[in-house]
């Protein structure tokens, strides 16, 4: 190992990430090369001094934690919407209204597992489209065609039959909802995004539990979620409460697919 290599590997060395062999080689070099040894020591002293200086001032987090605790641990009827909420363009959140509008409706009609799936789908939609956590979507027609061929081998014209009216496919990938893989299709109508989650043909029979109650609203994200089951396919539709008729789309899919 030469002096240049030592210099280049220095950040990894200082953060303790050098794999064993390289670290041994670097340490060997440091024993034999005084300038490099001095440089490494100086950098590590600098780090220590910086760390000490910055950690001397510990910020007081009690106010923030108090607010967060009040919002997540309190019973829902005491939970107030936050004063400042960052909205993402593609999800118009309808926080307070939807939350209070739903109080009077009978909740027992919705099975717990369906609620959980609805929540998982809403939250996946939010994370994928607002936080954009995945880079690996299929977008090109030929890649999408290959994806469909793999996940839904017996289904010809699947894409055109699930595409909502006036929308076009933006992208698709496999997403995991509570331990089950779904094909997550994202359709776009102008700026409005609609997610359709479909169980692949190869999914286990237990995953195909038909949906009884189709139309759920996730007030937290301002999203509507609608499950559907047709003779051959099971899925979930997610879209903005104001902009996407998720229930209608699901109803149509349950009869046409």
């Amino acid at each position, binding site marked *: 190992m030469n002096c240049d290599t030592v210099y280049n590997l220095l950040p990894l060395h200082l953060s303790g990430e050098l794999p064993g062999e390289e670290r041994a080689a670097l340490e060997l070099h440091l024993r034999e090369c005084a300038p490099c040894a001095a440089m490494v020591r100086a950098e590590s002293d600098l780090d220590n001094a910086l760390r000490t200086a910055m950690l001397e001032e510990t910020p007081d987090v009690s106010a923030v934690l108090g607010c*967060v*605790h009040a919002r997540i641990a309190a019973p829902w009827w005491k939970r107030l919407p936050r004063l400042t909420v960052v909205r993402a363009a593609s999800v118009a959140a309808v926080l307070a209204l939807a939350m209070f509008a739903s109080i009077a409706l009978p909740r027992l009609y919705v099975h717990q597992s369906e609620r959980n799936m609805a929540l998982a789908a809403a939250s996946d939609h939010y994370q994928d489209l607002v936080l954009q956590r995945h880079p690996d979507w299929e977008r090109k027609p030929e890649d999408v065609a290959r994806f469909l061929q793999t996940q839904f081998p017996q289904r010809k014209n699947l894409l055109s039959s699930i595409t909502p009216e006036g929308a076009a496919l933006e992208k698709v990938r496999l997403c995991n909802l509570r331990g089950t893989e779904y094909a997550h299709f994202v359709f776009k109508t102008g700026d409005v995004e609609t997610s359709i989650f479909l169980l692949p043909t190869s999914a286990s029979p237990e995953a195909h539990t038909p949906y009884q109650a189709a139309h759920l609203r996730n007030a937290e994200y301002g999203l509507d979620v609608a499950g559907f089951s047709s003779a051959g396919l099971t899925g979930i539709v997610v879209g903005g409460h104001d902009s996407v008729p998720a229930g209608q789309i699901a109803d149509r899919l*349950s009869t046409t697919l």
Partner: protein
Amino acid sequence: MGLGKVSFFPAHESAMAEDCASEFESVAFPHAAGLLRYALRLAGEKTRAEDLVQETLLLAWRNFHQFERGTNCRAWLFRILTNVHYKRLRQSGQHPELHVEEQEHALAAPEKVSASQEMREAFARLTSEHRQVLHLAVIEGFEIREIAELLQVPQGTVMSRLSRARASLRTALQARTMAAEGNL
């Protein structure tokens, strides 16, 4: 197939019961001080930093069911905070990649200050990009691989940025010392 139409309550009101809230708090709250330190670094100002941490923790809570138990909760929280911060910057029309020397702090009157005070002043004079990468690597102790993921840049970029940040910090410290000596 007959499909009833039923609205449902805010999702985790029952899906996530009280014990889940306390699990979340025990996993996430210990990282709050670090999050706030980092938020102060990014936002520069206390109220905005606190708001950023609050938004981060609430977002994490909403998505807690997707967090894989046993994986690195701190990295997950810092990633959310970074995303929220950049999203806000975009919404307010500021360009997140604009790293001018925005805080050209006047050198403080060179009275007797502690070494730590000197270090903090030198650090404050770095570019926001350099402060951010040093903060994550040195103060919070994240690995380079984690920082690369957090900032969505290649590891090589993180490494060269870190080296340059350390060099600027050293230069800033020396300038501070020279200014102090010159005024003696």
